C-alpha cells in the first residue's frame, strides 16, 4: 500500500514540477520591466553590429585606442589621487578621538552628493579664464597665466573632489568593521604600533581600498558632465559628439558598446573585491576599537583634513555664492529660476513615482520569487546598473527615433529614461527592505485569520513603507541632479536646474549658473548630510 502510494506521489510531483508553476502577477510585471530594461542595450549592440564596417572602422581607428587610453588614464589617475586623499582622512576620523569627529566624517562624505558638472562649473569658474581666481591674481599681482584648467588637469581635479568619498566611506566602514583582536594579536607577537598598522591594519584594508578605487574608476569612466565641461575628450564625450555632430549613429553605438564592456569588467571586479572584503569581517562579539588620543601629529593631520573638507565643499558653494552676489551687486539681470525649478520638481516626482512602482514588483520577485524568475530578473538589472547614463540616453534616443518617433523628445520618454537609469538603485533599496522582513510575519497573519490581501495590507505594506519612501526620495533627488539623460531626451526648450547649469557653463556665463548651482547643492547635500547624520547616530547607538 505504501509502495503504490509512493509511486502515485512521485508521478504527481513530477507532473507538478514540469508543468508551469503558478505565476504571480508581480512576477509577470517584473519580467516585463526586466525585458524593457534590456531593450535599449540590445538595440545598441544590434545597431553597432548593423553598422558593420563603419562601426568596426570606428573601433579600430587609432583615435579610439587613444580615447580608451585617455579615459582609462584619467580614471586611474583619479582613483589613485582619491585613495591618497581618502586614506589619511579615514584613519584620522575613525581612529583618533577628535572632538566632533563624526561630524567631520559627515562633512567629508558630503561631496559625494555634488553632481560632477556642478563641481566642474566651480572649478572653471574659479580657475578658468575670466574666473574668480584668475581675475583676482590678475588684478593683484598682474599674473595672467594660470595652469590651463581645460583638459586633463581640470578633469582630474574635479573628479578627485567628487569621487574621493567612495574610497573614504569604504575605508571607514572597513576600519569600523575591523576586529580589534587582529591588531591585539599582532601586539602580543611583539609588533609595535607602527609595525602593526602597516603589517596588519593596512593589508586588512586592502580589499576595501581596492573596492573604493574601482567604484571611482567606474564613476570616472561613465562621467559625462565634468568631462564635457572641462573639454577633456574621453569615450563618453566623444559618444556625445558623434551623436550630436554626425548622423551616423552606428559609430556612437560602437563606442558605447566598448564603454559598456569596460564598465562591466570593472563592475565584476568590484563585486569580487567587495566579497573578499566580507571575508575579513568576523562574526561574534566585536569590541569597538580603542581610539588614540590626539597628539600634535594628529592635530596637524586634522587641520589638513579640515582644509581639504572645506575646499571640497567650499569650492562649489563659495563659487556659486560669489557669482550670485556679484551679479546682485552689479545689478545684472539673471535668467528666471522658477521654470527650471518647477520642471526639475515635476520630472523628479514623476520619475520617483514611476520608478518605485516598477521597482516594487521587481524587488518582490527577486526576494521572494521562484528561483527561475529571480535569475531572469536579476541579470538585466545588473546590466542596467553598469550602464553609463550617456549610453542609456543614446540607446533610448536611437531606439525611439527608429521605432517610436512620436515618443521622441517627449516628457514620457524622458521619465522612462530616468526610470530605467535609477531602477537598479530603487530596486536595491526595496530589496534590502523586503529581505529584512520575515516571511513568517505574513504567515502568522494568515494563521490569525487574515485573507492574503489583508495580511499584505496590514503587515507587509506598513513595514515596506519606509523603504518605498526612501526609494522615492533617492530617485527624486538623483533625477534632479541627472545630466546626460536630461540633455539628450528632454523636449526642446525644456530646461531643468541641471541643464540650466550646463548651458550657462558652456557659454561661460558664470553668474547665470550660480543660482541653479546653489539649489542643486542644497538638493544634493542637505538630504545626504541628514541621512549620514541619522546613520551615524544609529552606529553610535549600536556601539553602546
Amino acid at each position, binding site marked *: 500500500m*505504501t509502495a503504490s*502510494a*509512493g509511486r*502515485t*506521489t512521485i508521478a*504527481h*510531483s513530477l507532473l*507538478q*514540477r514540469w508543468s508551469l*508553476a503558478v505565476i504571480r502577477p508581480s512576477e509577470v510585471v517584473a519580467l516585463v520591466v526586466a525585458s524593457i530594461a534590456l531593450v535599449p542595450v540590445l538595440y545598441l549592440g544590434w545597431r553597432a553590429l548593423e553598422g558593420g564596417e563603419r562601426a568596426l572602422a570606428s573601433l579600430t581607428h587609432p583615435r579610439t585606442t587613444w580615447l580608451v587610453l585617455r579615459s582609462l588614464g584619467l580614471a586611474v589617475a583619479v582613483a589613485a589621487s582619491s585613495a591618497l586623499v581618502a586614506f589619511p582622512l579615514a584613519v584620522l576620523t575613525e581612529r583618533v578621538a577628535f572632538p566632533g569627529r563624526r561630524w567631520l566624517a559627515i562633512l567629508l562624505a558630503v561631496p559625494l552628493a555634488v553632481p560632477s558638472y556642478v563641481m566642474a562649473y566651480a572649478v572653471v569658474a574659479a580657475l578658468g579664464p575670466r574666473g574668480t581666481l584668475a581675475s583676482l591674481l590678475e588684478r593683484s599681482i598682474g599674473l595672467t597665466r594660470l595652469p590651463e584648467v581645460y583638459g586633463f588637469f581640470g578633469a582630474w581635479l574635479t573628479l578627485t573632489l567628487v569621487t574621493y568619498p567612495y574610497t573614504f566611506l569604504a575605508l571607514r566602514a572597513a576600519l569600523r568593521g575591523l576586529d580589534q583582536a587582529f591588531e591585539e594579536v599582532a601586539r602580543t607577537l611583539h609588533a609595535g604600533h607602527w609595525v602593526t598598522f602597516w603589517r596588519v591594519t593596512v593589508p586588512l584594508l586592502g580589499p576595501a581600498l581596492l573596492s573604493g578605487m574601482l567604484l571611482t574608476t567606474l564613476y570616472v569612466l561613465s562621467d559625462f558632465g565634468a568631462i564635457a565641461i572641462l573639454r577633456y575628450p574621453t569615450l563618453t564625450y566623444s559618444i556625445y559628439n558623434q551623436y550630436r555632430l554626425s548622423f551616423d549613429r552606428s559609430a556612437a553605438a560602437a563606442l558605447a558598446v566598448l564603454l559598456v564592456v569596460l564598465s562591466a569588467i570593472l563592475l565584476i571586479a568590484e563585486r569580487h573585491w567587495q566579497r573578499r572584503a566580507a571575508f575579513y569581517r568576523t562574526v561574534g562579539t566585536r569590541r569597538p576599537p580603542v581610539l588614540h588620543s590626539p597628539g600634535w601629529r594628529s592635530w596637524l593631520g586634522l587641520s589638513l583634513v579640515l582644509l581639504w573638507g572645506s575646499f571640497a565643499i567650499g569650492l562649489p558653494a563659495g563659487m556659486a555664492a560669489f557669482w550670485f552676489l556679484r551679479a546682485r551687486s552689479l545689478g545684472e539681470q539673471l535668467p528666471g529660476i522658477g521654470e527650471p525649478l518647477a520642471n526639475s520638481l515635476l520630472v523628479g516626482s514623476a520619475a520617483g513615482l514611476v520608478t518605485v512602482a516598477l521597482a516594487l514588483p521587481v524587488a518582490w520577485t527577486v526576494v521572494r520569487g521562484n*528561483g527561475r524568475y529571480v535569475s531572469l530578473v536579476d541579470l538585466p538589472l545588473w546590466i542596467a546598473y553598469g550602464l553609463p547614463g550617456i549610453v542609456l540616453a543614446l540607446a533610448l534616443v536611437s531606439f525611439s527615433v527608429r521605432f517610436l518617433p512620436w515618443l521622441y523628445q517627449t516628457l514620457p520618454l524622458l521619465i522612462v529614461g530616468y526610470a530605467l537609469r535609477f531602477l537598479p538603485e530603487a530596486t536595491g533599496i526595496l530589496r534590502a527592505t523586503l529581505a529584512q522582513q*520575515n516571511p*513568517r*510575519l505574513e*504567515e*502568522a*497573519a*494568515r*494563521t*490569525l*485569520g*487574515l*485573507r*492574503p490581501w489583508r*495580511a499584505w495590507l496590514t*503587515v507587509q505594506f*506598513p*513595514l515596506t513603507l519606509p523603504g518605498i519612501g526612501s526609494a522615492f526620495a533617492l530617485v527624486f533627488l538623483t533625477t534632479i541632479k541627472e545630466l546626460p539623460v536630461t540633455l539628450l531626451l528632454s523636449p526642446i526648450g525644456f530646461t531643468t536646474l541641471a541643464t540650466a547649469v550646463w548651458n550657462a557653463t558652456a557659454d561661460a556665463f558664470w553668474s547665470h549658473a550660480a543660482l541653479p548651482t546653489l539649489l542643486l547643492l542644497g538638493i544634493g547635500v542637505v538630504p545626504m548630510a541628514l541621512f549620514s547624520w541619522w546613520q551615524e547616530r544609529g552606529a553610535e547607538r549600536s556601539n553602546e
Partner: protein
Amino acid sequence: MSETCAVRLAGVWKWYRGTAVPAVRDLWLDVRAGELLAILGPSGCGKTTTLRLIAGLERPDTGAIEIGGRVVAGGGRFVPPEERGVGLVFQDYALFPHLTVEENIAFGLRGFARQERARRVQELLALTGLEAFRTRYPHQLSGGQQQRVAIARALAPHPAVLLLDEPFANLDAELRLRMREELRRLLRDVGVTVILVTHDRDEALALADRVAVMLEGTVVQVDTPERVYHEPRTREVARLLGQASFVPARVLGRLGRSDIGSFALEGAEDPTEQVELLLRPRDVVLERHPEGLGVVVDRRFVGAETIYRVLLRCGITVETSQPPSVELAIGERVEVRCNRARVAAFAGDERIGLAALLERLGRTRSADTEAPVAGGTDGAAAS
C-alpha cells in the same frame, strides 16, 4: 475514539519543488483532544513541514488532514490557514515589529466586539504575566517575553489546536529550562490541544503527554514519554531518545542469558537466538565485586552524578550514571545489575519484545559461564 481526535493526518505526502526526497512521506498521526503531543526528530526530518501542513501554510501532495473532524486538506479540498482555527507559534516568533504587545495579541481578534476584545487581551496579558509590557514593541522585549507574546497572540482567538515550532530554540540554556516550566503550567491552565515540534529530547520528554518520533519524513512511533524512552520501536529511536547501550544476550526458548543477568523474553513471537538488551544510563547498578563481569574503564564526575564506563565480558562498553555514593576506581571489577524489571530486547534493528529480568540468576550463572566448561554445559542444555 474518532470524536476525541483533534487533528488527524492520514497518509500525507509532501514534496518540495526541486528536491529528490519527500519532506513528509506517508505520515499517519492522530492527536487526541486536549493532549500535548511532541513531534521529536533530528533536523531535516520533516517535523516543521508537518506543522506547516496542519496550519495550512503548505499543501499536501496526497493524503488527508482533519482538524476537529473536519477535512481541511485532501480529496480536492484545501482550507486556507485563516479558516482553520489553529494558532501557530513560529520558531522565531514572527511578532509584528510595527505593533505593540497589546496590538500583537489583539491582531487575531478583529471579529470580536471592542469590549470583548479588550477583555480577551487583558486576560491573556494576565495569563502570560505581560501586563507591564503592554505598550512595548517587540524589539524592546527579551527573548522569553517575546515568546510569551507569541504564545498569547496565538491563543487569543481560542484556536482548536496550538502549534509550537521549536519554541525554545531561540532562548539561552538557562532561560530555556525556566520557560519550559512556565509553558507547561500555562498550557495546563488553558487546556488546549498542543502539537509541539522539537529536536530536543529532554524538552519532548519533559513536556509531552505523548511523543511522536519522526525520522526521514514519517512518524516511527507514538507513545508516552516513558515508553518511547524505555521501549523504543527501533534502534534509531532508542539512540535519538538518549544514551543507549546494547548488551548482547543468548536466548533459548523463552529464557535468555547475558552479562547483566538472566531473563524471560516476553512478547516475541518467534525469538531468535541472538538478541540485544537496551540499557539506559540509569538502568544499571554497579557493585564492587572481585568476580564481577565488568571492569571500570572510565569515570567522569559531572556534579550531581558520576558517569562510569564499564567494559563487560562480552566486549560491550556500557555507559551508566551512578549516584555520588558509588565510588569506584578505574580498573576495578564490578558486578553490573539491571534495576528495571523489564528492558527492551532487540533483534536486528527492531524491538522484538521485552526481557523480564530474573533476579539472582545473573551472577551465579554468568559466573560459571566464564569458564570454558560452562560453555559446554550451556551447549548441553541447548541440546
